[in-house]
């Protein structure tokens, strides 16, 4: 009798864990994805959630990043905006699992320039979006990530 109950419990437990791993949890993730740009998994989805329809390409945004990065875990990236009224710089790493890397907002008196180190899983485009007076501008550059560190 006891053995029978034990077996039944086991079956229930495994069924529950199966459900969790296969599909039951996905609706909540999908739900979060719709609103949180940081959970979005593609560049298009990020732009859609942020409400950016159009971003004018601008050469007044300067991205300084290595052409070839030997260590993708820490790539120095400097983004400078010479656009007047810049209030926000958004950094997107296009091939990362979650492309949106950072939203940097600049207050009064701040110079719209940001220097930080970013992870890159593979060769990617670094996209910088600049918000100035409710208009968006963009610039991009390519970074080649060599995992072995031997060039290539």
């Amino acid at each position: 009798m006891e053995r029978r109950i034990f077996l039944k419990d086991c079956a229930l437990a495994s069924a529950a864990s199966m459900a969790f791993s296969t599909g039951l949890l996905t609706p909540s993730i999908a739900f979060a994805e719709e609103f949180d740009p940081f959970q979005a998994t593609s560049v298009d989805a990020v732009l859609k959630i942020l409400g950016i329809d159009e971003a004018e390409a601008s050469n007044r945004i300067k991205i300084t990043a290595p052409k070839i990065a030997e260590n993708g875990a820490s790539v120095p990236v400097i983004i400078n905006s010479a656009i007047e009224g810049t209030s926000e710089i958004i950094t997107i790493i296009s091939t990362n699992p979650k492309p949106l890397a950072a939203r940097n907002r600049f207050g009064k008196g701040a110079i719209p320039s940001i220097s930080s180190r970013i992870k890159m899983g593979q060769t990617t485009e670094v996209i910088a979006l600049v918000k100035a007076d409710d208009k968006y501008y963009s610039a991009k550059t390519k970074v080649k990530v060599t995992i072995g560190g031997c060039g290539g």
Partner: protein
Amino acid sequence: MEKSTIKIRLKEKDGQIWLRALIKHPMETGLRKDKMTGLDIPAHYINDVVVEANGETVFSADWSTSISQNPFLFIKFSGSKGDTVRLTWKDNMGKSDFIEKTVGKR
């Protein structure tokens, strides 16, 4: 007192304050697995950084897991010697830390 997780350097140059900060933080993506146990390492990352000068916010950022481990930050804003600068970070697990420093003092 526990050692601060933030190292900060402030320098005044031509009416601008140059802020360089290094924060000690693992910045786990949540995509890695523990090699010993095979279990997922939960995401653990800083998602909010604020810099205030004399109580006014000059810079704030939302970060994601794409920012490198032990994040480095370099920003500039207008100010002068004697300004009090405060940097605060918060992570997705509810931890936080801050540092306050006066420009021009060691």
